[in-house]
């Protein structure tokens, strides 16, 4: 893919972009040369460097085309290193972007940002983090969707075959609330240094609520999540994969106070979140794929405890959520936010010099 300059009256911009399918349906910010160049100040790679090809259309990914879409989404220039790292994560083979883009399942790449850059950019990990109101979350998430549409060619009904889609396909970006988590943050669990910044991508459905207002101990919260996650309608029931639980900080604090760490919760979910085989076999995707647990009754929804992703997201209140995924054909990928030479970036401000 290459970029081109077009002249269009400002009042006609959105109509012109919409007619060409260059939009998510919302008005876009005009990607003028000056705005794209401002975005590229936060990138130390050549603007035309080929970073890969994005399926399913096999569009060539360059910093410049990513910057064009980031401008269109409304990103501040300093958000660009997060957008770039997220795209690099999606292009890793383990993420299987081709399938994520083309499936009938309503998954969308969800970005979970960890480390000091999340705070530097003001990416919300507290109240309403999965919802509206914060420019960094809204526009970084939107930039990813515009890139998937315009570079990857994932136009609904054409190469994006999602039967119904979902609202998170507009924007899906949060920070982990590390400050109010009793546990090790996601990126450190996944092998990155505590002071580093990362973006983790998971191909997920929208958040499914886990409401427990009455439990004062871990047992009730765990029973609530087991009841909610024993879900025959999610892909994980048949394709396994790596679903995420995003605990609100109150639920996380109660669990930690009762001595529950992430690994113990993972073991609990593997053992307790199971569907009776007689029910499991009646519908869903029974018989379409290899049954990993032919002798198990009831049937677990994850292949191994380690496959459960756990983070802390949100403000106070007795809600958590879980994010079912597309299945085990896509794996969670974490990418450090770095300079071009791979050196971890301490602050995005350092890139602008």
């Amino acid at each position, binding site marked *: 893919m290459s970029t081109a300059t077009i002249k269009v009256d400002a009042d006609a911009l959105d109509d012109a972009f919409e007619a060409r399918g260059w939009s998510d349906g919302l008005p876009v910010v005009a990607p003028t040369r000056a705005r794209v160049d401002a975005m590229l100040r936060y990138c130390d790679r050549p603007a035309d460097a080929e970073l890969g*090809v994005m399926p*399913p*259309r096999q569009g060539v990914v360059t910093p410049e085309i990513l910057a064009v879409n980031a401008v269109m989404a409304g990103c501040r220039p300093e958000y660009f290193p997060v957008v770039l790292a997220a795209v690099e994560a999606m292009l890793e083979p383990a993420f299987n972007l081709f399938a994520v883009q083309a499936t*009938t399942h309503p998954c969308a790449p969800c970005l979970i940002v960890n480390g000091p850059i999340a705070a530097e950019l003001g990416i919300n990990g507290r109240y309403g983090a999965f919802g509206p109101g914060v420019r960094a979350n809204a526009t970084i998430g939107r930039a990813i969707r515009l890139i998937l549409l315009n570079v990857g060619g994932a136009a*609904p*009904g*054409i190469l994006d*075959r999602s*039967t119904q889609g979902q609202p998170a396909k507009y924007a899906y970006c949060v920070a982990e609330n590390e400050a109010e988590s009793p546990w090790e943050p996601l990126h450190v669990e996944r092998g990155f240094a505590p002071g580093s910044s990362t973006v983790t991508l998971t191909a997920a459905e929208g958040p499914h609520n886990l409401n427990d207002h009455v439990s004062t101990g871990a047992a009730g919260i765990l029973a609530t999540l087991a009841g909610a996650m024993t879900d025959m309608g999610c892909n994980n029931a048949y394709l396994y994969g790596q679903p995420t639980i995003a605990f609100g900080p109150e639920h996380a604090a109660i669990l930690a106070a009762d001595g529950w760490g992430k690994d113990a919760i993972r073991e609990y979910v593997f053992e307790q979140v199971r569907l009776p085989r007689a029910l499991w076999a009646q519908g869903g995707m029974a018989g*379409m794929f290899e049954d990993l647990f032919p002798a198990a009754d009831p049937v677990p929804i994850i292949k191994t405890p380690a496959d459960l992703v756990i983070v802390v997201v949100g403000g106070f209140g007795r809600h958590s959520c879980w994010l079912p995924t597309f299945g085990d054909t896509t794996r969670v990928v974490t990418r450090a936010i770095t300079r071009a030479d791979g050196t971890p970036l301490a602050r995005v401000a350092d890139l602008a010099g």
Partner: protein
Amino acid sequence: MPGLPLIPIPHPLAGNGPALVADKAAAIAGEVVAALCGDAATIAATHAARFTHLTERRLSGGAVCIDAVCAIDPAVAQRAGGGGR
């Protein structure tokens, strides 16, 4: 591979009966043959703008499905014709 000519078969196939799968395959067979056997420059030119044109068609048509063969399986549709309980 940049520029790889892609001939999409209308997805999904999982719930389709044999006749609909055969119809979908037949609908793209000509394009597959052309992509494999045609002149490389012509193929590249045709496919470069293929999805932009498809998007324009979809939007101008009211965001409807643009596939020539994309339907509820006829066997299911026939049964659904009776309404519901």
